[in-house]
């Protein structure tokens, strides 16, 4: 149940002022799930756990959901719907208006050399514009460096699996093993499985897994989905991996 330091809050709940970080210099930064009602009221808008980082003077609500709402500089996996005069239209989550991806927003792309993507191809991209009044925009190249740094079309086969947004976020954590408590990938890739595969994780709840071996992709995919859906802890993950590897043999 609710711990004193990290209370579980429902929309509209009072946030005990003691918990609101008051940093001498840094201004207070509100993360997802919170809204500020001038002058000084801060209210949760979703149900989840209140996380506060006094030293960073930031606070947000930790929660899990399944409908992706684009946010600036998120990494996402999208499906090309069609190509316009100078944009591709990219679907980030079902039944939402497509995001736009400029034809030239690829590494080293010029009018001539830009990649030709058919409807249905997958791209790994970054959200550059997210604004409730406009449709989102994405890019496959960092505007600053001009490098792709891993972004771009996911051409070489593979498979995408849908996971919950919270799980995708954990996968994307710098130390996804320590903080996110996700080990399956390491285990499968490491001693346990000795499988070789590559992954790309989209904040919009999509994980792409590529490998020479079809079976590998299936195993990895199942491992991820089960860990997410069955909410497996580290120990259970180890069991699962062992089981899957046995099946494979």
């Amino acid at each position, binding site marked *: 149940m609710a711990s004193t330091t*990290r209370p579980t809050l*429902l*929309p*509209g709940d009072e946030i005990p002022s003691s918990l609101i970080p008051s940093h001498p210099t840094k201004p207070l930064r509100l993360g997802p799930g919170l809204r500020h009602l001038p002058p000084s009221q801060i209210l949760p*808008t979703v149900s989840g756990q209140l996380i506060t980082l006094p030293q960073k003077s930031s606070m947000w609500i930790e929660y899990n*959901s*399944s409908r992706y709402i684009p946010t600036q500089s998120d990494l996402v996996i999208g499906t090309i719907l069609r190509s316009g005069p100078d944009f591709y239209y990219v679907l980030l989550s079902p039944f939402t208006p497509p995001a736009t991806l400029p034809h030239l927003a690829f590494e080293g792309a010029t009018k001539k050399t830009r990649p030709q993507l058919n409807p249905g191809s997958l791209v790994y991209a970054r959200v550059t514009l997210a604004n*409730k009044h406009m449709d989102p925009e994405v890019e496959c190249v960092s505007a600053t460096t001009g490098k792709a740094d891993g972004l771009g079309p996911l051409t070489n086969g593979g498979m995408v699996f849908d996971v919950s947004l919270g799980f995708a976020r954990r996968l994307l954590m710098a130390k996804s093993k320590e903080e996110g408590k996700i080990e399956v990938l390491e285990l499968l890739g490491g001693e346990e499985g000795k499988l070789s595969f590559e992954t790309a994780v989209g904040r919009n709840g999509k994980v792409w897994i590529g490998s020479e071996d079809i079976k590998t992709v299936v195993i990895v995919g199942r491992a991820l989905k089960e860990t997410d859906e069955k909410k497996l802890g580290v120990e259970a993950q180890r069991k699962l991996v062992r089981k899957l590897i046995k099946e494979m043999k």
Partner: protein
Amino acid sequence: MTATSEPEAALGVLPRADGSAKYSHAGYTVTAAVNGPIEAQRKDENPYEAHVDVIVRPAAGVGGTRERHLESILQSSLSHIILIKNFPRSLIQIVLQVEDSPENDYVNTKLVQGNLNFAIMPALFQTAVLALLSAGVPMRATATATAVAVVFHDGVKRTVVDPSPREIEIARSVHVLAFTSHDELLLAESEGDFIVKEWDEVYETAKKICCHSAPADDGMQMALDEEAAAGPDMRHFLRSTMESKVAADLYWK
């Protein structure tokens, strides 16, 4: 058969919906799916706010005028607690499927019924709120609802919480009230024959059920026991339901 006295709820029962909930109380069982924010149809597009679309589907037969009416009541109340301004030009779709409703053993059910089915409103409302919470749709506040009937039994007046269809049939007046978690009256529907004084009493009873919140730390069980007489403690029920959901979601924290 036997109507459950305490409300029960399960969240995320429909794996393919953004949010979902199954809620059963007082013999009613309702399942809700929430999708959104998604692309709105031309006709529903609003440049300033999200369009909230509520669809009520009866267990048997096709929805008629009374479902439309229920929908419009729920729609206006839910749009008030959802932060619709956050998602202009989009659609938040709430589909409520009635699965079970208590039968009146003294009447053979008719499929097509025109009159407003009061007692089902709290169930529909509560399910919708739970489903919205499970979908993580940003909201101004949560809300709870209940139904109260004033029954004259051989000259003696009783206020009945969560009345059975039978009790509604013989009730002098029936009331449905919903309160936000800020103790504001969000929805009030009453019919029958009553006076202001009676309504006041009803208001008190309903408010107790919807807004009396037991301290968060004590278990829900005992809270229910002490409330058993006056009916369930809806707000506490809602909270503990969500707390266990969040705890489950963030098991890795």
